[in-house]
């Protein structure tokens, strides 16, 4: 009996180490839910600002240009709040799981996300500069989806499913000009809440 216990302990430690050494398993589901809530709040604020039907192709160009700085401001606030919440909650979970927050796995995760994210970010700046406002929402969804797909190899593979969903939604958004804000709210709001909830139930507790 003594040996059996020892072997079972060995197996448990092997299993845990193989996972902890290769994947960053401290991502917080709760952070995903909150990021979704921030995104929905931001989208509601943007909608209030535009004060026009969802179809913003019909918005007078001058009106759009005058509110553009505010829209960018809202987007930045949502982004920063989501990142801060994500880092804080992930830090807490990493502590609990005994995984370093700035270790080999989290570095690989961030590095692999960074390339599509930076590419997408620069593309969006160029689109804004050149006046292709309608392409900003689909581009942000598609490149965020690509970043998540890349990240999925270094954390829970559920992240890949979220990534693919964002990419599909981004392509749909490209086909439906004028519904960018609505579909953006679904992608960054609703999908994050659903995904965060699933992750919370599966891994956080």
């Amino acid at each position, binding site marked *: 009996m003594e040996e059996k216990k020892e*072997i*079972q302990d*060995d197996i448990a*430690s*092997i299993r845990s*180490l193989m*996972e902890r*050494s290769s994947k960053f398993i401290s991502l917080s589901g709760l952070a995903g839910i909150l990021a979704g809530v921030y995104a929905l709040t931001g989208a509601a604020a943007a909608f209030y600002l535009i004060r026009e039907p969802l179809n913003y192709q019909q918005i007078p160009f001058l009106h759009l240009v005058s509110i553009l700085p505010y829209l960018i401001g809202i987007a930045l606030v949502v982004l920063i709040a989501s990142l801060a919440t994500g880092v804080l909650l992930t830090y807490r979970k990493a502590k609990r799981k005994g995984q370093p927050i700035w270790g*080999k796995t989290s570095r690989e995760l961030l590095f692999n996300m960074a390339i599509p994210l930076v590419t997408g970010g620069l593309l969006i700046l160029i689109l804004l500069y050149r006046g292709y406002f309608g392409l900003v929402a689909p581009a942000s969804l598609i490149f965020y989806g690509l970043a998540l797909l890349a990240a999925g190899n270094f954390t829970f593979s559920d992240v890949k499913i979220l990534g693919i969903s964002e990419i599909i939604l981004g392509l749909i958004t490209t086909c439906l000009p004028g519904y960018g804000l609505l579909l953006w709210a679904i992608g960054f709001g609703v999908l994050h809440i659903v995904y965060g909830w699933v992750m919370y139930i599966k891994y956080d507790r």
Partner: protein
Amino acid sequence: MNIPFEKLDKAFENRIRLQIMSVLVANQRYDFNSLKELLAVTDGNLASHLKGLEKEGYITVHKSYLGRKPNTNYEATSKGKEAFKHHLDAMEQLINQQKGK
């Protein structure tokens, strides 16, 4: 039916060696400091177990420099991976045998 304990690899008798090997089987390469952080062991302890595994021919060492800091990476050899697999098989058999009793 009696499966002897000799089937278990002596090189993995120590828990830390077994843990090192699991990390190196799951990852292509792993560096000394990340390994130390992950296993929560001291420098000396980790180094001596790594030496032991290297002597068995289960792992290889790659030394390089990141700027001025030495950066030592470890990689499991195919012999090491094979041995690890056999060890797991033996553990599985032992457990199954105990269950039968």
